[in-house]
């Protein structure tokens, strides 16, 4: 049944406006966090302590974004009492804020390691898995970028793409882990650095999970159904 002449937006323009602002805020935060991840990985690979410091100095800003997003979405729910897709949108944005904040935490940990990693040597464990680190960094930021874009554009196809790519990241992590293990078996003198490297790899793998969680929020926001495992492979 069709409703005669439905208006495109809300009768109350402030609802549209607030939802738009919330979304813009989440997208801005997403941009910052993606940069935090790629900078942290770059700092680690290129032994750039200054870049690592930049990442660390921006971490409070990420937290500030998250708490503002949380507060604003709560205020929106209290004042406008949204239902149906509006409610799902507000919730998806707030939850994505939490996921992005955790991504920020992971980049902080990688940056801390980068800041103390020093000049390194040819036998450094970071060097031994540099290729994997670089690949995982690229993959996780690409997943994050698509997840944030899917949130911005309410695009379920893009969100599903992120879910599908997570497996690739997990496989890369498993390969890198095997590499680190054989490295440490050969030479135990870099034990501390090896542990930190494993944490960095694990951090990137977790970032993929956060991107996946954001995408699941997007799917729930758009489709009103929680994505099931069976739906993972579906296109759009």
């Amino acid at each position, binding site marked *: *049944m*069709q*409703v*005669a*002449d*439905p*208006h*495109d*937006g*809300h*009768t*109350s323009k402030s*609802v549209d406006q607030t939802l738009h602002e919330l979304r813009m805020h989440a997208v801005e935060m997403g941009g910052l966090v993606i940069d935090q991840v790629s900078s942290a990985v770059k700092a680690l690979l290129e032994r750039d302590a200054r870049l690592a410091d930049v990442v660390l100095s921006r971490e409070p800003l990420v937290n500030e974004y998250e708490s503002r997003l949380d507060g604003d979405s709560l205020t929106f729910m209290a004042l406008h*009492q*949204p*239902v*149906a*897709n*509006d*409610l*799902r949108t507000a919730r998806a944005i707030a939850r994505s804020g939490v996921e992005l904040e955790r991504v920020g935490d992971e980049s902080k940990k990688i940056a801390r390691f980068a800041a103390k990693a020093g000049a390194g040597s040819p036998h450094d464990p970071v060097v031994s898995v540099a290729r994997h680190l670089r690949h995982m960094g690229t993959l996780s930021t690409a997943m994050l970028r698509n997840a944030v874009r899917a949130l911005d554009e309410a695009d379920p196809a893009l969100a599903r793409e992120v879910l599908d790519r997570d497996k690739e990241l997990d496989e890369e992590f498993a390969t890198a882990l095997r590499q680190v293990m054989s490295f440490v078996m050969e030479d135990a003198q870099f034990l501390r650095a090896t542990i930190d490297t494993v944490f960095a790899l694990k951090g990137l793998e977790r970032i993929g999970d956060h991107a996946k969680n954001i995408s699941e929020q997007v799917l729930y926001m758009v489709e*009103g*159904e929680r994505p099931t495992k069976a739906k993972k492979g579906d296109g759009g």
Partner: protein
Amino acid sequence: METLVNTRAEINPRQVAPMQGDTSAQNSETPSLSIVLEDRKVARANPPKASAEKLNFWYGTNQALKNINLVIPEHQVSALIGPSGCGKSTFLRCFNRMHDLQADTKYEGAITLRPDNVNLVGPETDPIEVRMRIGMVFQKPNPFPKSVFENVAYGLRLRGISNRTELAERVEKALRAAAIWDEVKDRLNDSALALSGGQMQRVCISRALATEPEILLFDEPTSALDPIATAKIEELITELRQRVTVLIVTHNMQQAARVSDFTAFMYLGELVEVDATSKIFTNPSKKATEDYITGRYG
């Protein structure tokens, strides 16, 4: 058009998943824990108390209800929402034949009341008999210009109850059921018109409850009340479902969300969608419903 029962089966067939202690269903596939948890969040439809079947209604030549099929589950609260003029009040008033008071109106189809399968809108059915079984509470509190006691006793006296002790007992029971006994027990002989709006409305609910109706109809029961009085009435409606089946028309969608188990959305005299209230307000199936409840609608 869906009915509550059909919709329920369509939307979530797992609602009939066996629960703990339900041995009758042990033979069927045992549901996983997650399915059981999910089911508990969704209201289950009780057996029907009444059902509208192909109900049409005309004011003169103007058709106000078009082929309505809707099941009202017993001891649950069903809410009717929709824009002004969508037919929700017209539908509600069919249940106690209020349209009979108006000339040039016509019913077609049936509203079947269980368990005896009386067609409430059938020409053979006595409207007075119908009103004995279906109580109604209106938008504005409308107590009679009599004492609190006499207001509640009115319907009982009409039914031939004259024994003072019995009257007193039943009036107290009705006032307690409407959560107003404590406020009026010392003022039973005062005029009901001297009470506050919220109290008057609860006296009207007591008056409707006194004759122990099977269905209680509420037509915008709180739109003339302040927020505290509204909260009290809403709480009362939630409790009332234990003794009576409730059908409520409301313009306040948050109210429908707060008090009802099932919500039906009507538009231009048609039933667009009916489902568990939690489903309607998080993920309605029809775009028209979503547009209305989110306010994207002129």
